[in-house]
């Protein structure tokens, strides 16, 4: 059960804001370090080296603002109205009232595998997406659990945190890759042009750059998975609190995990998104593929213990 102080959505938002700040600081340091290394390896004078981060940051900002639209577009989700999906929209409405959230847009994907995700950078730009399979296979109380879990991601600003993390992880990988190529192809030519005195320093810079290029993406991934798992547990706990029935979500998780339906379409779509635009993947309810989610048995066990 969540601690007393974290019962209200406002406290969780505050907590998440702090986390976001710490995360951002960590990543900016990481990225700044990398860009300085790249700059130095390229032979730029020191004050100019950090500027190397600018094009990468532009890429990051674009990803951040367009991420949710791309995710919705690729997944083939259709927005539904209250008339069309009365039960679904009503349940979302009720849960939003219970959580003190504005009403998000509701989408359905015509796919038989039970799955759901939430997207959008803040509660005012949020969307909840469920598959047809989820609506067909889950009982009302189970669907309520799943929707409460997704809405908790929205309410806790998890999507923002995870979007930032994922974009930054991508950035780190991109820069590290760039640097690897640089050290590989650039080393011989450049050291040949320099005098004897510069040779040692350049070699050291390359060595450090190489090490950084290998280690930073790993560190970034580690941060990302740690954050993501923690967010999942928190969303489960919030969902249990909101629906007052941990059992609903627990049963839904078991059903989703045990679903025999071939998930070809959804999985391929997810995998594809993961590489090109991972913004969708971290909210995907059916998980374990990328271990951004804790194991389902563990989540069910914790829910049942609440």
């Amino acid at each position, binding site marked *: 059960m969540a601690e007393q102080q974290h*019962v*209200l959505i*406002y406290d969780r938002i505050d907590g998440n804001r702090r986390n976001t700040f710490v995360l951002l600081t960590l990543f900016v340091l990481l990225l700044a370090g990398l860009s300085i290394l790249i700059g130095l390896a390229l032979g730029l004078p020191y004050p100019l080296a950090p500027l190397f981060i600018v094009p990468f940051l532009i890429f990051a900002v674009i990803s951040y603002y367009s991420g949710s639209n791309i995710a919705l577009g690729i997944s083939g989700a259709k927005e539904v109205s209250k008339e069309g999906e009365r039960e679904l929209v*009503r349940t979302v*409405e*009720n*849960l939003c*009232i*219970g*959580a*003190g959230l504005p009403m998000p847009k509701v989408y359905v994907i015509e796919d038989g595998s039970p799955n759901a995700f939430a997207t959008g950078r803040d509660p005012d730009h949020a969307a909840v997406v469920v598959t047809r399979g989820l609506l067909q296979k889950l009982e009302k109380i189970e669907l309520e659990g799943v929707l409460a879990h997704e809405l908790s991601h929205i309410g806790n600003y998890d999507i923002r945190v995870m979007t930032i993390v994922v974009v930054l992880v991508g950035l780190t990988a991109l820069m590290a890759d760039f640097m690897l190529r640089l050290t590989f192809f650039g080393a011989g030519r450049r050291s040949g042009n320099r005098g004897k005195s510069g040779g040692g320093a350049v070699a050291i810079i390359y060595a450090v750059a190489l090490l950084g290029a290998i280690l930073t993406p790993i560190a970034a991934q580690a941060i990302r998975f740690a954050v993501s798992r923690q967010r999942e547990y928190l969303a489960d706990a919030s969902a249990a609190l*909101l629906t*007052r029935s941990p059992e609903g979500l627990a049963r839904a998780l078991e059903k989703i995990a045990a679903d025999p339906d071939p998930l070809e379409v959804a999985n391929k779509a997810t995998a594809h998104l993961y590489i090109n635009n991972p913004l969708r993947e971290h909210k995907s309810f059916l998980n374990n593929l990328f271990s951004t989610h804790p194991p389902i048995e563990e989540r069910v066990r914790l829910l049942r213990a609440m």
Partner: protein
Amino acid sequence: MLALTIILLVLLGVVVLAGLVLLGIYNGLVRSRVRAREAWSGIDVQLKRRASLIPNLVETVKGYAAHEKQVLENVTRARAMLEQAGGAAQAAQADNVLTGALRSLFAVSENYPQLRANENFLALQQELSDVEEKIAFARQFYNRNVMQFNTRIQVFPSVIIANMFNFERFDFFEAEETAREDVPVSFTPSG
């Protein structure tokens, strides 16, 4: 002379610091109170919606079961009670009475197949059950906010500020236990 200046400066520092802490606590309390009020308006909206559906329902039922006077009267009276209620505790009580009265009304309606087939009646019934669910969720959100606010104004050190500025406790919006359960539908008119 220098010693005196230092002492004065330290004192001034302490006073300023204490003032800032008090200001922070005060702001926290105000924020918490605003949230509780906001959460209350979430319930209020649904209660108003519920009350506004009643006259239409009563008229519809009258058309088919005019002699169920007692049941209809109970519903009308509960609605009036709800509209006049001041504060969360009273509103909760009136709402619970209305829930009970509506239950009997819908139970009685089972005896009138023509009424059960009336589209308007069915739509109203659906709408009312939707409102009831929403009230339950809004109540949950409100009570959680109230619990936090009430705790804040009772614990040290914020209790001092709360007393200084007359922060008053909010009433919880309490549902009767039975309100969450389904009442078995009776086929004998209770009125």
